[in-house]
């Protein structure tokens, strides 16, 4: 199967870091095929979040090539980036929910920026909230929800565009085991429906309960 994600020799060094110091990512190469469920593992500081920031074109690589659906993300024009992001389902470590808006409006955001009409958008938001089990909470403010529920709002926002690729950075980090399992079951369900999933976690017990291929990062390098 064609690779959805392809890193080859990707290095990311932050400006202002120590000269000659360790790179956040150092000559990293790996592929993720379409339809795969892949864990990106490693301790914090291993470079997992940098992989996500590069994939979402929040940052550009210092060296190397990273392809997403055969598009060179590292060299993409600023004008093209929004359209790349619309095809990604992003669940970031810091949740980035807007606390002055309802759950519904938070999930609506990716559709609103794409110009989906309010009627069509409302239908799709409810479908996404239904999938994560929050249909009854659409009028709530995210602040009124538990940590697990907030994470579900993030997942609903990530899938509302029906992306072919879900990127989740430590989606269970702040949750206790029972909530974490429920979240993982959601990702497994999306995977079963054909979505490619790349999920970063430092929690090895989680992988034991939900097996999948692993790409292990340590100190910015892929461990063989």
């Amino acid at each position, binding site marked *: 199967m064609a690779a959805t994600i392809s890193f080859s020799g990707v290095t990311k060094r932050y400006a202002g870091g120590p000269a000659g110091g360790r790179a956040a990512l150092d000559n990293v190469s790996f592929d993720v095929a379409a339809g795969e469920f892949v864990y990106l593992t490693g301790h914090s500081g291993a470079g997992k979040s940098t992989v996500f920031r590069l994939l979402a074109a929040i940052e550009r690589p210092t060296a190397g090539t990273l392809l997403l659906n055969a598009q060179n993300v590292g060299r993409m024009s*600023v004008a093209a980036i929004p359209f790349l992001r*619309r095809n990604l389902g*992003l669940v970031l470590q810091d949740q980035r929910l*807007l606390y002055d808006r309802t759950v519904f409006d938070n999930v609506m*955001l*990716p559709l609103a*920026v794409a*110009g989906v009409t309010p009627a069509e958008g409302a239908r799709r938001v409810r479908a996404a909230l239904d999938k994560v089990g929050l249909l009854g909470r659409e009028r709530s403010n995210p602040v009124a929800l538990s940590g697990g529920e907030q994470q579900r709002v993030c997942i609903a926002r990530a899938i509302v565009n029906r992306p072919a690729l879900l990127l989740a950075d430590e989606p269970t980090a702040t949750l206790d085991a029972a909530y974490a399992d429920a979240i993982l079951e959601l990702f497994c369900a999306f995977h079963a429906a054909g979505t490619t999933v790349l999920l970063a976690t430092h929690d090895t017990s989680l992988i034991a309960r939900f097996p999948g291929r692993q790409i292990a990062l340590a100190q910015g390098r892929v461990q063989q």
Partner: protein
Amino acid sequence: MSAWAALHRAALADALAHAARTPFASLLSIGALAVALALPLAGSVVVGALSRVAARFDADPQISVFLRREASAKDRQALEKAIRSRPGIKTLKVITKEQALADLQATEGVRDLLAGLPGNPLPDTLIVAPADSTRAAIDALRTELLQLPNVAAVQVDAAWVERLEAFVRTGRLIATGLALMLGVAVVAVSFNTIRLQVLTRARELDVAALFGATRAWLRRPFLYFGALQGLAAGGLSVALVGTFVAILNQGLRAGAAIAEIPDGFATLTLELVLTASLGSAVLGWVGAWLSVREHLTAHSSAPG
């Protein structure tokens, strides 16, 4: 409804909602902008009125030749003949001292004043219109007329018109300069108002960018806000100046009994109204655009 229309409708609704959330701040900005815009607008109205007055007299300058008071009717006829025989005279009109007195006596209020005077204080006057209205020709004619017998004084009516024209030119320059400076002020005020909004919504902009918002989408509600604020300020300044013009015209009509002032002396032309409102909207838009651009360049989830 197309996606395009949905995007614009949403941006407009967003801008209006923001204005409604901060009514005092919005009204104060609009008020400050309107006062700033009213200055050059009022200046333009006054300059426009004065230039219309100047244009009315500009076409044919007149030379008034006043005779000495003791000159007789015969002297006057001789002078009239001498002037008529001279080349370069287009028309010559005689106003005898009796006619002048009769004209004055017809004017309310002056009659009583005249009744107190012994005899007729007015001289005979010849109104000469030169064929050549260039300044040099008029000056030459004036000198020549002064040397004729029985001429007490020669007054070129164009002189005050020239002064008025110079005044109008200066006024127009000042109004244009004010308009330019205050136009920059509109951009600056819009820039700052929008900047404040952008900063309070920075997180929202960042999240939206992360989920695929284009720069155009991020900018749009602010551009609408800037343009609407400018439009409202322009409209308010038109209302302010309109009131000023109405008061000015009323005052002038009261004075029209002693000075000949055309009706509707000062007018707020449609052209001025449109320039002020739309110009202000465009300037507000420009200020907003600059403000959002600065923010997006400095902080956004898009790599530089």
